């Protein structure tokens, strides 16, 4: 008798989100199978994407081996972003770290102007994150959204404390929202429910927080896995969004990654690989070598 392997068919479909416009665009999500379940019925039309991170100021605490790939451009965020493009990134992830009141408290206008310059200078899509300070982000992100009006960028983090003001600005200027909640599926769903009262669900990406290996990675892993399962298996409308794993910064602030290049690449790589398996749709790296290696791994057939 012929053996036929059992296959599953699911009812949920992750919403497909387009970041950017025209040739400067990419798509994430759209899958109706669990991560790498290619044996089940369904498909993932958009393989995972890889973004490289750029800061809006010269990094203060990066080890030499992380600066090295960008050493001639690291003082200029626009050149740095172009370099990421040359290195084969699918997208640039700009973090406006200098706007943090605890860093430089630089102004929303400065940040917005830089964001626009970068968006115009590169031929790949741009993701923009504020510093994570919810109050300051509520000033900065609306300005950024306005400066980049109509470019359909992915902007965040939209948080429980500022989703109304930031979400409205993103909506008014035609961008996608990256909704961040602190490692908790119930809070994550709550934020999506509240945001969706005025913001289209098809333009939301979930940022569940991506903790580094040895620093809580297993929590992020379980959470991403659960978000996918609840979306795809039980068809929960408020978790059927693509996931972003913003892990580069988390990995490269560990003692282990700072100590030694090889260790750092492994730290970032293993963290990324874990989140790939958990179902991340786009991953943010700091080191281009990790990003290339992961890309190679996912392309193996």
């Amino acid at each position: 008798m012929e053996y036929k392997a059992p296959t599953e068919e699911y009812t949920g479909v992750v919403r497909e989100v387009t970041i950017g416009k025209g040739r400067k665009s990419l798509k994430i999500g759209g899958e109706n199978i669990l991560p790498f379940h290619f044996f089940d019925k369904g498909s993932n039309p958009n393989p995972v994407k890889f973004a490289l991170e750029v800061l809006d100021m010269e990094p203060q605490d990066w080890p030499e081996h992380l600066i090295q790939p960008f050493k001639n451009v690291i003082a200029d965020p626009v050149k740095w972003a172009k370099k990421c493009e040359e290195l084969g990134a699918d997208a640039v992830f700009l973090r406006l770290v200098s706007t943090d009141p605890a860093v430089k408290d630089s102004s929303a206008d400065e940040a917005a102007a830089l964001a626009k310059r970068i968006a115009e200078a590169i031929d790949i899509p741009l993701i923009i994150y504020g510093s994570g300070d919810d109050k300051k982000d509520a000033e900065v992100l609306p300005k950024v959204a306005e400066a980049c009006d109509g470019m359909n960028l992915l902007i965040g983090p939209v948080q429980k404390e500022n989703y109304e003001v930031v979400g409205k600005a993103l909506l008014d200027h035609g961008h996608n929202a990256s909704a961040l909640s602190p490692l908790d599926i119930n809070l994550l769903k709550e934020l999506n429910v509240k945001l969706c009262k005025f913001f289209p669900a098809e333009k939301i990406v979930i940022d569940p927080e991506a903790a580094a290996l040895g620093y809580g990675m297993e929590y992020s892993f379980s959470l991403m896995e659960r978000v996918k399962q609840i979306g795809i298996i039980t068809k929960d409308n408020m978790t059927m969004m693509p996931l972003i794993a913003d892990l580069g910064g988390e990995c490269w602030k560990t003692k282990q990654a700072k100590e030694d290049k090889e260790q750092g690449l492994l730290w970032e790589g293993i963290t990324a690989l874990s989140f790939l398996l958990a179902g991340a749709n786009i991953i943010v790296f700091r080191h281009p070598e990790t990003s290339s290696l992961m890309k190679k791994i996912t392309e193996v057939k």
Partner: protein
Amino acid sequence: MVIIGENIHVIAQAVSTAIRERDARVIQDLAKAQTEAGADYVDLNVGPMKKDTEETMQWLVNAVQEATDLPLSIDTLNPVAMEAGLKTCKRKPLLNSASGKSLSKEQMLPLAQKYSCDVVISVMTDKGMPPDVESKIESIMDTVAYANELGIPNENIWVDPILLPISTAGEGQRFTVINLEFINILEDVLPEIKSTVGLSNTSNGVPDELRPPLNRTYMVMLERNRLHSAIADPLDKELISLTKGGMPEIVELIYRTMDGEDIALSSLSQKEIEYVKTAKVLMGETLYSDAWLES
């Protein structure tokens, strides 16, 4: 459903001050209000009661007994306070609570036998909280067997599966589902046994105004699964009405939701929709969030 009124609780500032200052009126008002609202027992949750233990407990029990004829549930982990309380009760009290922990088996269960009172026994053991239905059943069977050997019959035992907050990150819903199932099979494995839950625990950590719908709906669901009693807030009129037969349509609606019926929300009132949505999060069908009524 036997309702054990939870409102005399040391966590409430007014109660702890009243006990400390021997202000009987505050306590008696709470006892009267719960009695009038339809409670079947009055719980006296006194905490560890480290100072003047016996004298304080006797004072409290006597003060409450002057205000109500209801039987009392003596709620403390301190065995000295417990014995002082049980001794002072005029009607057969409820010892709240014992567990499968060694210390509790040695100190609390013998008191239940000595005063031939009813006793709440939780599923906790020295190993902690059993994580699933099977291990909960296993733990409680061990502890009940131990109690039986001491001469405490099943009909005097009220098993507490220990409810945990539904909002506990990721895990909370798993517990609400497990406890529904546990209550459902309890009497099959331990005939004549009774059961109770700390109902309000389910909604701990949830914004205050959203707690009642969770407590009310879960009570109806547990009652359908043959829950004998709940430590709950009898001043919640809707809760009491649900259990005393005042809202049969809502109860029916919750049952239909539990049975997996595909209920058309558009034909329902706002209140009915809320009960359906709440039942769905409590049975684990939809993922919980504090915005569960809004989605």
